[in-house]
C-alpha cells in the first residue's frame, strides 16, 4: 500500500509538549501499536505521556491490535481530567 500522510490529533498537555495540535505521520497502514511507535519516533517530547494515552480511531477508542487504515481519523487521548 502506498504511504500517505496520517494526521494525528493531539490535545491538552500533549499538544503543549509537542508544540502542535497535529502531527503528520507517514503511514502505509498497520496496527495501533505500530502507529504508537511511529508517533513516538516523530515526536520524542510526548513519549512519556503517549505511553499513558489511549488512541481513538474514527471516533472510537481502539486497542493496540486494531488496524489503522490510511484514511483513519486518529487522535491521541492522554489521561482525562474533565468533570
Amino acid at each position, binding site marked *: 500500500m502506498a504511504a500517505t500522510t496520517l494526521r494525528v490529533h493531539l*490535545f491538552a*498537555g500533549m499538544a503543549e509538549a509537542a508544540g502542535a495540535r497535529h502531527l503528520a505521520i507517514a503511514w502505509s497502514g498497520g496496527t495501533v501499536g505500530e502507529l504508537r511507535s511511529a508517533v513516538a519516533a516523530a515526536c520524542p517530547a510526548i513519549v512519556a505521556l503517549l505511553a499513558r494515552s489511549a488512541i481513538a480511531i474514527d471516533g*472510537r477508542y481502539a486497542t493496540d491490535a486494531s488496524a489503522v487504515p490510511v484514511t483513519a481519523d486518529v487522535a491521541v*487521548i492522554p*489521561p*482525562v*481530567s474533565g468533570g
Partner: protein
Amino acid sequence: MAVVACRLVHEEIDTAAVLASVADAAAGAHVLFVGTTRGVTGDVVTLGLEYEAHEPLAQALLGNLADEAVRTYALTSCAVVHRLGAVPVGSASVAVATSAPHRREAFAAAEWLMERIKCDVPIWKREEAADGSRTWVHPDGPSAAVVPEHGS
C-alpha cells in the same frame, strides 16, 4: 420513553434548565450534580480553569454513558452538559441531572455518571495557579480508556 440529552457548551451552563429538562410525570426524584471551579483547595488558590475536549468523541461517549445510565438505573430521564473553554472560579464546568420514580436510582445514576465522565470522556482541564502559571492536568497512571469499554 426515557429522554436523554448530552451537550458540550462554550458558554455558562444554565443549571436550572438542566434540572428542568429531566422532569417527568413518572419521576418523584431528581438529582442535579454541579461541578464548579474551586477557588481554594486547602491553602492553594486557583484563579480559573480552562477545558478542552475531543468534541466528537466526547459527545458520542457522553451519549453512550447517558443511555447506559438510563438502562441500568431505569431512569425516566437524564441530561449531561459539560462546558469547554475558560470556566471562572465558582462557575459550573459540568452539570448532570437524573430523574427516576424513586431517589436511590436517581442518586446512584448521577454518581455513576460523574465517575465515568471523569474516567472515560476525552475532556481535559488546565489550571491557572495564583502565580499565573497554567498547567494541563493529566492524572497519574494510564488513561482508563486504554482498555476500551466502548467501541472496538
